[in-house]
């Protein structure tokens, strides 16, 4: 009961968080004049005369609170507005681009966390030995390389040089035809999962082939985060008295590491993992662009560049919710990992 109350309380916190974020966005929008915003609807000289009509139509010259009122009254009716950057309702756009991001996340997060924690522990155990240097060097180098550069290099090698090995996009043409055919049921629009559910190994393999490079890029870039946190946390734990005590008692090193040190060292890594999930949900803009893997990141940045206000607001609502929920899950995980931590 106590846990349920805690969860409800945390979820209620969503409302002020979202309202606050939306107000900030509305405030930021005031830096753009109505003309600047209206001009984005105008494509050719034939349409230049329509600037004033556009300003009026979209209430761009109204005070900020009036614009906010128009927007919030529509949201309360379930209408998040029209995303002009992708020419569809915002709610549809969220649903359309979410599966691609989720698919990236499903593979990247476990891989990054698993490798990051493993390398962090290895590095800590072999502190200042060649294994430690190489591990840290590789991780920091991966973190230092710009995502678009690393992505392009991987694409040039594994798609350009080894022609067609790991192509960009989400699916190849043949798999696309299968997925869009009437006989294929798209349950989640996550192709690997739908492929399994439809028993279409060809779709699964093709989707995996397209996932290799973006997942590799994201893993390399995010690995250092977890690895470094895990290493320092592990080093700190290994210096604790109870570890010394465990060793003094004659426990073998494997038991000391796995049973006593690792679990206690995990808490900071879990926090970073929560951050990783939330940031990947917001989308990996550069990776998605380079690999033509259109997800929420690509959509949100494209919308922001085009001052597609309803899309930006819809995205902010979504990502605010994700961050609050992710933080909640992380807090719940703390209690699970370390029973001494009490939620309240």
């Amino acid at each position, binding site marked *: 009961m106590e846990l349920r109350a805690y969860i409800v309380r945390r979820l209620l916190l969503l409302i002020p968080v979202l309202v606050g974020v939306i107000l900030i966005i509305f405030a930021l929008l005031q830096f753009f004049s109505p003309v600047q915003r209206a001009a984005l609807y105008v494509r050719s000289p034939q349409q230049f005369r329509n600037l004033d009509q556009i300003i009026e139509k979209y209430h761009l010259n109204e005070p900020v609170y009036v614009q906010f009122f128009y927007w919030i009254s529509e949201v309360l009716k379930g209408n998040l507005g029209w995303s002009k950057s992708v020419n569809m309702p915002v709610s549809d756009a969220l649903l359309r681009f979410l599966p691609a991001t989720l698919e990236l996340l499903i593979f990247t997060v476990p891989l990054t966390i698993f490798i990051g924690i493993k390398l962090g522990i290895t590095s800590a155990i072999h502190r*200042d030995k060649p294994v430690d240097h190489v591990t840290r060097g590789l991780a*920091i180098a991966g973190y230092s390389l710009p995502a678009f550069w690393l992505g392009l290099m991987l694409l040039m090698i594994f798609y350009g040089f080894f022609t067609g090995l790991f192509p960009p996009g989400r699916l190849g043409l043949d798999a696309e035809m299968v997925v869009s055919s009437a006989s294929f049921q798209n349950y989640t629009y996550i192709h690997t999962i739908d492929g399994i559910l439809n028993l279409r190994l060809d779709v699964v393999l093709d989707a995996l082939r397209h996932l290799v490079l973006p997942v590799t890029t994201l893993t390399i870039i995010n690995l250092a985060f977890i690895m470094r946190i895990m290493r320092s946390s592990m080093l700190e734990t290994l210096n604790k008295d109870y570890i010394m005590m465990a060793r003094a008692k004659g426990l073998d090193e494997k038991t000391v590491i796995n049973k006593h040190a690792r679990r206690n060292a995990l808490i900071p890594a879990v926090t970073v993992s929560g951050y990783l999930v939330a940031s990947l949900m917001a989308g990996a803009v550069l990776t998605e662009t380079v690999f033509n893997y259109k997800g929420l990141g690509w959509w949100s940045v494209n919308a922001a560049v085009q001052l597609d206000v309803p899309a930006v607001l819809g995205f902010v609502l979504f990502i605010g919710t994700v961050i609050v929920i992710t933080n909640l899950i992380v807090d719940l995980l703390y209690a699970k990992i370390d029973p001494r931590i009490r939620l309240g």
Partner: protein
Amino acid sequence: MNIREKTGIATSAVIVIVIVIVAVIAGAVLMLGQPTPTTTTTPTTTSPTTTSPTTTTQPVKNPDTLIYATIGEQETLDPAWAYDTASSEVIMSVYETLISFDGTHTDKFVPKLATEVPTVANGGISADGLTYRFKIRSGVKFHNGDDLTPEDVEYSFERAMVQNRDGGPVWMLLEPLIGIEAAYEPLTFEQIDKAVEVEGDYVVFHLAQPYPPFLAILAQSWSSIVDKEWCIEQGDWPGTAETWENYRNPETPPLQEVMNGTGPFKLDRWEHGVQTVLTRNDQYWGGPAKLKNVVIQVVPEWTTRKLMFLAGDADIVDVPRPNIKELEGVEGIRVTKDLPTLAVDAMFFTMNIDPNSEWIGSGQLDGNGIPPDFFADKNVRLAFAYSFDYEAFLRDVYQGEAIQPASPVIEGLSYQNPAQEKYHLDLAKAEQYFKAAFGGQVWEKGFKMTILYNTGNEPRRIAAEILKKNIESLNPKFSIEVAARDWGTYLKEMVASKLTLYIIGWLADYPDPHNFVQPFMHSAGAFSAWQGYSNPTVDDLIMQGISEIDPAKRQQIYYQLQQIYHDDVPSVPIDQALGRHYERDWVHGWIYNPIWPGEPALCDPYLMWKG
């Protein structure tokens, strides 16, 4: 920090540095192999040339499917709403019009959903040019199986005029059929109803005035024929007078997401931001297309597009102008160059600048500004025209792949006078005209003004810098500042006549000189109105040109207008870009018509195949 820790950090740092260096070298090696840019020369002719160095050894990928990788996607699928080239490209593959352009010609037509192209000779066009009769083809079916009827044709045009969205393309129907110049002028349903009538198997258009480009307007996406019954099922206008106003200027177009045409391809799906897939209409009345699918993929990143093209996963790609040399001489790639486009950029002089403009300095001819009527003096306009280095501009901005037009009646349009004189860089003449301007005061007192360009628009910045450099070299009292503002501000200032001069482009709506001389020269035209340019003779000639149906007389009128344009110099055209088309050499059947939408990319996929 102890020594051990310091040594550890140093070792790690060495590893990081080594990795980064290796990565950079690898990147550099991978980047090598791209051809270095070669010296360019400005073409004097615009005959397209095709190069295909060596045939590919790669097997044809996806032989039934044409994949076009491009940078953006359509705004809508509704023909009455669409006014962007990407939308038109999709619409013209799925819907059909009564007539279409004949292959590469912009002034010849072939019948599509009409059985013949009406002419005065065959009685399809009345002698006074006010009535056009089209016999509608029988046996044609929409993709949903409905039969095409003359009522569908009537509905299609009336629906477009009812919808008539702000800033949309429907003004092109309203002008000839109703006689109103702007889409927002008052309009009654009676006017719409009377304009298009069904007479048996015929559809008859009643024009408000003779309008020679009318056939060209009917051959484009906004004149697509839709299925009345199906449209009503989609919640569109039911075809009745009572409710027509409810369907005017809607928030979103009724046919935004759906298509049901009679064309050779059907819409399979539109995955917003990702791709649009068209599949063959096997029941097409003209016989099925050779291609089974056409896929238009949105791939904004150039390197990704290029790699897809080289790997054969894209058959046609858009290539950004700065990268045009990268695919030259590459095995398996066919490049067609020097394709004339019906687009022109020009430098417009504002003759009655708003006195409150912040770009005219003191607002007086005192050496610290310019008076609002600075450009009203023709000597100033001529001096500016002779101060621009047209060749350098075409070389620097277009890598030589553009031509300098003499007037808004650009190459590719009927009645263009090939012998029309152009302006060229001549600083001696520029000096002479500056000395004559304002009775010699301009030369004596000097001037100071600002030329604005929209942030990020390099061609406009370069043009402004060329003017600045050349004009300031003439007299130390001449000062020009070049400033950048965002696109919205640039637009607003231009429309409010606050810019001293502005550079902007015009893309043809239909291939007729009227579509160019009207905005460039008529006192109510888009550009000339903002400039404050007015010449009653010009206005009269423009109205004569659009209502004259005798081609010989039209030629005379437009030749005269071109000469007046040169003499009056209300603006100076600076470029007409030449396009390029890149395709894998296994693609066949591509033809180029300058009026077809978009970059020279798809044109007509019905004619294309792979093999």
